């Protein structure tokens, strides 16, 4: 069975597009022997997390809301690599990607433990996917780029990713720059 890469595409039809980003990333992954599954999150009806913690203390491991959010969480766990592909909003993710991630907390346990001195949640599963974040800035903004990269690394700690890398570029960057950045970020993680 091949390795599965799941692209969580937070691009939207009315804003910054991630189409070009996906067109670059998908062939790179396939050339390296990965099966690629793309989730176009703007086209999937997912209710937002309601912060009830039911996924931890009522229906452990599964969100209490029975919609496509459950399927996204399942697909994340059953991946070898997850790629967050998103327009960058204030340094963070676009709302459609964030909504899917908010609904993915059932894949970890409520219990706390200390990780490198900080309190984080305990693993629910033995294995978790590697993580690559690819962000498209609306314009050149070093601070937002740095926040994005920090956010991806913070998520990797909380979601127990065994390897993480991220890259960010502006929608106005040259095609050559964008290709080079995406190739670099993916190779850093799929090469490990």
């Amino acid at each position, binding site marked *: *069975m091949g390795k599965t890469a799941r692209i969580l595409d937070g691009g939207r039809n009315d804003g910054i597009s991630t189409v070009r980003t996906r067109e670059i990333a998908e062939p790179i992954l396939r050339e390296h022997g990965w099966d690629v599954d793309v989730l176009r999150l703007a086209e999937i009806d997912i209710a*937002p*997390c*309601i*912060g009830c*913690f039911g996924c*931890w*203390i*009522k*229906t*452990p*491991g*599964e969100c209490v809301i029975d919609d496509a959010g459950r399927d996204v*969480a*399942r697909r994340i*766990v*059953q991946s070898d690599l997850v790629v967050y592909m998103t327009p960058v*909003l*204030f*340094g*963070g*993710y*676009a*709302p*459609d990607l*964030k*909504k899917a*991630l*908010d609904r*993915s*907390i059932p*894949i970890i*346990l*409520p*219990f*706390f*433990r*200390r990780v490198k*001195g*900080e*309190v*984080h949640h305990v693993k*629910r*599963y033995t*294995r978790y996917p590697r993580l690559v974040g690819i962000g498209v800035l609306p314009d050149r*903004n070093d*601070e*937002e780029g740095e*926040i994005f990269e*920090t*956010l991806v690394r*913070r*998520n990797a700690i*909380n979601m127990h990713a065994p390897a993480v890398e991220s890259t960010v570029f502006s929608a106005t960057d040259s095609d050559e720059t964008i290709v080079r950045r995406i190739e670099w970020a993916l190779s850093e993680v799929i090469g490990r």
Partner: protein
Amino acid sequence: MSESSGHFLLLAGSPKPIEKSGSAARGNAVIEGLEERGWTSEAVHLHTAIRSKTGTDEMVNAVDRADVIALAAPLYVDSLPAPTLRALERIAAHCREREHEHSTRFVSILVCGFVEPSQNGTCQRLLEQFAARARLEWVGSISLGGGGGNGFGARRIREALKLLVEAIDEEILLSPYVDDLIGKPTLPKWLYVFGGNAMWKKAAKANGVADRLRAKPYQRPKG
């Protein structure tokens, strides 16, 4: 009451109703402090507002009425809840386009479920970018760990919120002394881990699922 009293808008960023939200409760404490100084106020529940055009229009109208805006929100996966982000995106777009006769100031109150307030740091930076993109004047941020205190460190949190009221009313930046008050965990980490884990087990037991707490419904099939 200072001469600068004005109109305060609380943007409640939790999915929970304002009256049940821990982060909104901190925002309400700021409202009380400001009203004692002659301010008027209103609150908008962002998750409700962003669901309809009417709600969104009312939200941006409230933004236009405000002299100071505060976002009070829980930390979700190192950032804000998705609908809160969507609302802020809409507000930033609106504020960039408007012709406003005076500057609007912005503060944030972040509450995370980990004991370390520092885990709000990335989200706080994100909110500073929101303020810059929305052309709002950044005043400062109150960053709380441990679910907002849960009774621990209550006196220090009250003091920090008083400093925030002072900063808003007197049009000054939030005092760095706030970090001395609330910058550190309110409980030793080992105790938070021990107590938190016991709390989760008790809650699961009350729901009759204690034996399934570690269930793996999405376990990958072998092979």
